[in-house]
């Protein structure tokens, strides 16, 4: 499908089920995303694992962000301004890959989430003579 939704009269574009990480989200999510960005360092990952609460406090996460992290609530983290590229680094610590994150966000069992992707299964190949 190549049709797209229209912006509202106020100019706001809502794409169903699709967070758009804009300036408003980037401001709201800065502390959470900064914490996740720090997880590029193995030392920081270990520090988070050793004491999650202290680590979240060090980065000044909001109460909403801390609660979403405590609950492993991915949609909650995104609602609190998290960006999935940074959240994926937290996911790595928690043993959650992007398919696990997808299952958690859609509410589908992991196997169903994977099956839905496989239902698109196709390989289309062309090589010029």
């Amino acid at each position, binding site marked *: *499908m*190549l049709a*797209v*939704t229209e912006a509202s009269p106020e100019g706001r*574009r809502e*794409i*169903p*089920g*699709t*967070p*758009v*990480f*804009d*300036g408003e989200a*980037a401001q709201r999510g*800065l502390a959470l*995303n*900064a914490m*996740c*960005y720090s*997880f*590029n*360092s*193995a030392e920081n*990952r270990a520090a988070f694992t050793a004491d999650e609460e202290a680590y979240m406090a060090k980065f000044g996460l909001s109460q909403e962000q801390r609660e979403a992290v405590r609950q492993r609530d*991915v*949609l909650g983290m*995104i609602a609190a301004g998290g*960006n*999935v*590229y*940074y*959240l*994926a*680094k937290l*996911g*790595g*610590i928690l043993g959650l*890959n*992007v*398919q696990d*994150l*997808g299952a958690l*966000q*859609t509410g589908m069992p992991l196997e169903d*989430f994977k099956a*839905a*992707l*496989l239902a*698109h*299964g*196709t*390989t*289309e*190949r*062309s*090589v*010029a003579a």
Partner: protein
Amino acid sequence: MSQVIGGIFTSHVPGIGAAIAKGLQQEPYWKPFFDGFGPVHEFLEREKPDVAVVFYNDHGLNFFLDKMPTFAIGAAPEYRHEDEGWGISGFKPFAGHPALSWHIIEQVVKDEFDPVTCQAMKVDHGVAVPFELCWPDTDAWPVKLVPICINTVQHPLPSPKRCYALGRSVGRALESWQSDEKIVVLGTGGMSHQLDGQRAGYINPEYDRFCLESIVSDPEAMTRHSTLDIVELAGSQGVEIINWIAARGALRGTVRELAHNYHVPISNTAAATVLVENREPVAA
């Protein structure tokens, strides 16, 4: 004069890097994707490019939200891949090409773009995975790298039209580069995929097929969508296709498709590889 030999467009899913590290290329899940690289390997073996100019996006290795450039051009003597936080690391270092980087920077600024210039820059899987796919089993990468990073993280993203125009400007720079070096252009990321929100797992083969056709024969058709249109059509990370649009802009000669491979799914992604050659237009 340098020669822009062609373009390679490919997905850069991190899981591909993990599959390579584990040697899973011939496993049934992965084989249909990796097999798409046969024509790419033959092309690179035949043409032996000296330089790869790579349009990609950073996913939070080099750039964070404290300083988020819309366009960033690497001008470093060397680039490294480092720990991205969740597993893959240890890709070989990349030799840079500062003289060509600065030549490109001069041209694009003259053309009224305003890039961030980086004499130190880490490159993530958006560069490393495509390099590993193009040049597997090598002790050192056989090409020098000029990385051009496009913001696909924080909206507003640059428009597809602007990305295409940036690519055209880079293409002008490559054509005027006084060297006998052969240059290949890469555009990485895509195709349709979405990692976040209730629509996570979204795939749109119809839009992907539109892109597979347009990227070869009518790239400007892809610029008629806004970035938010593409977010809707391709998913919130499928918008990485703007890297392809920029890369295609840099191919200003006669472009012909040599091969393409579209395979769904790799992880949450519709994966694809497109190989095109670029030849100077022949006067009739």
